[in-house]
């Protein structure tokens, strides 16, 4: 499973992107609940463009961006730097649900959201920051 995903991420990057963009998260999110939940992420991540990078990269306009390419962020793991995929709501959902399976070797240490609804709420909140 892991190997397959790695191959998909590294070798089939462009194709993967097309597929992933077609997928939407199943649940409707609530941006206000997302704001409350996102507070825990603010030890490292800020979606406001005026803050920029923190312990983790800025999440401003995250959807549609190529992963691991935020200007000025020098702390990407090799795994993320080489991942070659574009962030979509579905991929962020998958990352938060199961970070180790999604991208082995990533260095984001966090307490995963407890439910799919919480992930949907977080995603809805992030969509409010500079989505193209």
């Amino acid at each position: 499973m892991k190997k397959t995903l790695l191959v998909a991420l590294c070798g089939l990057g462009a194709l993967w992107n097309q597929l992933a963009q077609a997928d939407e998260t199943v649940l409707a999110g609530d941006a206000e609940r997302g704001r409350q939940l996102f507070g825990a992420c603010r030890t490292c991540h800020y979606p406001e463009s005026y803050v920029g990078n923190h312990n983790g990269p800025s999440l401003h306009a995250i959807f549609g961006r190529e992963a691991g390419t935020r200007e000025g962020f020098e702390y990407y793991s090799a795994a993320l730097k080489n991942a070659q995929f574009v962030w979509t709501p579905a991929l962020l959902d998958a990352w938060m649900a199961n970070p180790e399976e999604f991208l082995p070797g990533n260095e984001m240490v966090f307490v995963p959201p407890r439910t799919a609804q919480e992930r949907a709420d977080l995603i809805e909140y992030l969509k409010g920051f500079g989505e193209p």
Partner: protein
Amino acid sequence: MEMAAGGRARRRFMERLSLSGLGGLGMGAMSALGATPVQAATGSEVRQWDGETDLLVMGSGAAGMAAAIEGARQGLEVTVLEKFQLAGGSSSLSGGVCYMGGGTPLQKALGFDDSVENMYHYLVAAAGVHAEPARIQLYCEGSLAHFDWLNELGVRYATRFSSDKELSHGADSLYYSGGEQTWPFREQAKPAPRGHVPPAHNQTGGRELMKLMHAAAARLGVKVQLRMSAEQLIRASDGRVIGLVVEDAAGQRLNLRARRGVVLAAGGFIHNRPMLQRYAPELASSQPAWGRAGDLGMGILMGLGAGGNLLRMDHGFAVLPLYPSEEVLKGVVVNRFGQRFINEDAYYGGMGHAWLFQQQGHGFLVVDGDSDYPGPDYRFTLAAEAASIEALETALKLPPGALVNTVGYYNQHAARGEDPQFRKQTKYLATLTKPPFKAYDLTVGKAFCTVHTFGGLEIDLDGRVLDGWGSAIPGLYAAGRTSASLPVAPYLASGLSIGDGTFFGRRAGAHAAGKGA
């Protein structure tokens, strides 16, 4: 061909998404955690040792690394065990502030006069009934030597002072990180800035600090093993702690022997919900929980299972960051009865505590057109906006006249630069007269109030874990937020947790080596 491959990849991807609905691996492991003591294994159960060293340290944050570095400096062979794939613990996510004083070289270079006595008086006053005078005295008397110790590790400060209440710009290294200039503390001890922080943008000084501590430890030969999760203490038949049962990345259980001792430095328990609800219900009620994912209380529960005593388990920081911007501090913070209850310029740890513990997490921040935030802010949502205080009071469903009285009384004195009730600093006093008037919702759960735990194992001044009779458990140390030490509630100043963890972590390492720090 391409379509077929794509179809397979897509199916796998969708399978993954549906699997993920069941929760990640990490959560599975975490949900097994409870609030009960973790029983120590007995030495006679150990069939074989899979490794051996002098000092085993659980946790690679500031406290654990300080113990490791000091132990190694004094000749011990040291191994540090880190549960996750990245070292550094919560310290690496922190601002990296270290609370030091008594006339440090940086304080002197910037023209600030401080003394051990002033520092002591501030900390004793701010800790109130929870102060441990002997611990505070040792910390203050050792502060200059601690500055040198950090300097030897490579920690450098910029000769730049900031008068901001929170350091967010990155180029400065010294500031008033607590309530030194605020009432009542400014009357109890001569104020001095004691928050020392390596220059780093957006409060990422903790990452810089931990990078330096890990580099220093590596130079001293300290081994840091990632993805090694300490699960159980091992005790000899005479009660001495002689090692740890550790689970490696592959899920294998290993018995590691520690010839001189084990240091529990695995952080607090803000991410262990059952434990938080059992011991610190006020903290459990607020969001967000701040701390790295390892703050699961595991070190505390292991120490408890070995007979360690717990102290101040309901203490923690509850930081309600009204500032920045400091303009809003010209407004008033009222409870659900429309009354002020604290000086708005209080250190945000003091503000958060008064609000969460004494006002049950209810209230409003009331500002006028001049003191409002520059724009919408992620921390707080608007409860009401109105053209007059009367209309705002009605919209908030406050008791009739309550807010009008509060603001009227406040304005009457603020116009003269006075605050007879709560003695707010003059620079934050202004009449609230310019519409629109806004009330930001300070309701627990909605308001952004970061929480972290301070309670933990009782330790002596050398970091030895004490049992309920006050006797040290041989071979067992605790440091940082696994222990109950200098930080108490309300929190005294930013940088005291890192300061405490590194200072008493050092002492634990030195004691295990059989020498003083």
